[in-house]
């Protein structure tokens, strides 16, 4: 239940109006949340969740139907697939993996925009990758500390 609320919150966060100067730096909340859960609680969120959220995001943002769904599917699939392999990495290396995945996400969106003939500046696409990675790192560090505290209590 709380996960559902969290997911709806990420949808809301991705369309909340921001001042024009900050808007290009808006992280891809949905992608970041899904990646976070892929690593923190694997197998809880399936590809179907990613697909449904992607369609909701397409409808909310007025994008081509299926655009965000496809991009989210790809990164969640890769994250689930290689989760076991990269799980043991120290966080500094995990951050690089996340950054690559988010960059791939942005690139797929950009590529589909290009194929569909919508002109979008490439430069402004990279800011969300950086902010998204930052948000993911903060979430992971916080989550890890909470888990460690919980374990200490037990």
């Amino acid at each position, binding site marked *: 239940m709380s996960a559902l609320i969290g997911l709806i919150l990420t949808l809301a966060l991705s*369309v909340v*109006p921001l001042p024009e100067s900050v*808007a290009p730096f808006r992280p891809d909340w949905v992608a970041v949340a899904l990646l976070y859960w892929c690593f923190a609680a694997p197998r809880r969120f399936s590809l179907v969740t990613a697909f449904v959220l992607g369609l*909701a995001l397409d409808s909310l943002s*007025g994008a081509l139907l*299926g655009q965000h*769904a496809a991009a989210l*599917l790809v990164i969640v*699939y890769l994250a689930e697939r290689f989760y076991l392999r990269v799980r043991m990495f120290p966080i500094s290396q995990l951050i690089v993996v996340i950054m690559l995945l988010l960059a791939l996400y942005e690139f797929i969106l950009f590529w589909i925009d290009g194929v569909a003939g919508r002109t*979008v500046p490439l430069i402004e696409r990279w800011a969300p990758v950086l902010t998204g990675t930052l948000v993911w790192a903060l979430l992971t560090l916080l989550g890890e500390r909470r888990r460690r505290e919980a374990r200490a209590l037990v």
Partner: protein
Amino acid sequence: MDGPGRTTTILRGGVGNGLRFLVLASISVTLMLLDHHQQHLSRVREALSVAVYPVKVAVDFPFNVWNVVSDAITERRTLVEENIRLKREQLETSFRLQRLASLEAENARLRELLDSSSKLESRALVAEILAVDLDPYKQRFSLNRGLLDGVYVGQALLDANGLVGQIVRVGPLTAEALLISDPDHAVPVTVNRNGLRTIAVGTGDSRRLRLPYLTNNADIEVGDLLVSSGLGGVFPAGYPVGRVVEVKQQPGQSFAEVTAEPMSKLDRDREVLLVWTSAEDSPGAAAANVEVP
């Protein structure tokens, strides 16, 4: 969870995941192809827009509350000032309206003489802009009116000062509008001073429009008012679109660089007017009714 049990789940899940990924990915690619090429998916889109409507309302809610609260705690002084200003404006508009009534009557009479069946009055509905950021690289917004209010694709939007944009997508409860400042948008306009016809193209900046199809010797000056010409049949004719702010003649080029500022406050509106125009309103239809001697 114990070791071996977990491994088998992961293995089973791994195989199933690959297949599931392929199926879902091909579905989304098919959706994209259908959505890009045809309008087959309007039903799906409508259903989805209803599904995400609560999110839009939830995002809009705090902004709405803020507006109500700031209305409630406005200082008396500001209210008095606003009242004075509004009274003055009202006087001015009612003065103009008096002339409009007689002009309307005269116009109707003249049209009767020409035997053309054009109607001046058109239906309008106030729609509220939902405080929801769509794609940051496009000049679009969501409205709280949809199919249930009779909104249709291609419908014109106005505010108190002029043309705002048009509806590009309609759901049962919400609609999506494209602003005249979107880089993909163009409005057929005429220069009010001399009737010169041209096209105003959006730039992506809500304070600027481009007029790329005017030759260097075109009769256009800074300060000229551009009104919608009604050609193309989407926008009603005669509404203010923008004012020319810059004319740059370019020797050696065939076209001048002309920039206009939209009349409507595209980035500050909270409410817009949806306008229903009858088919006879478009000048093409009116012209067809006029017999050429």
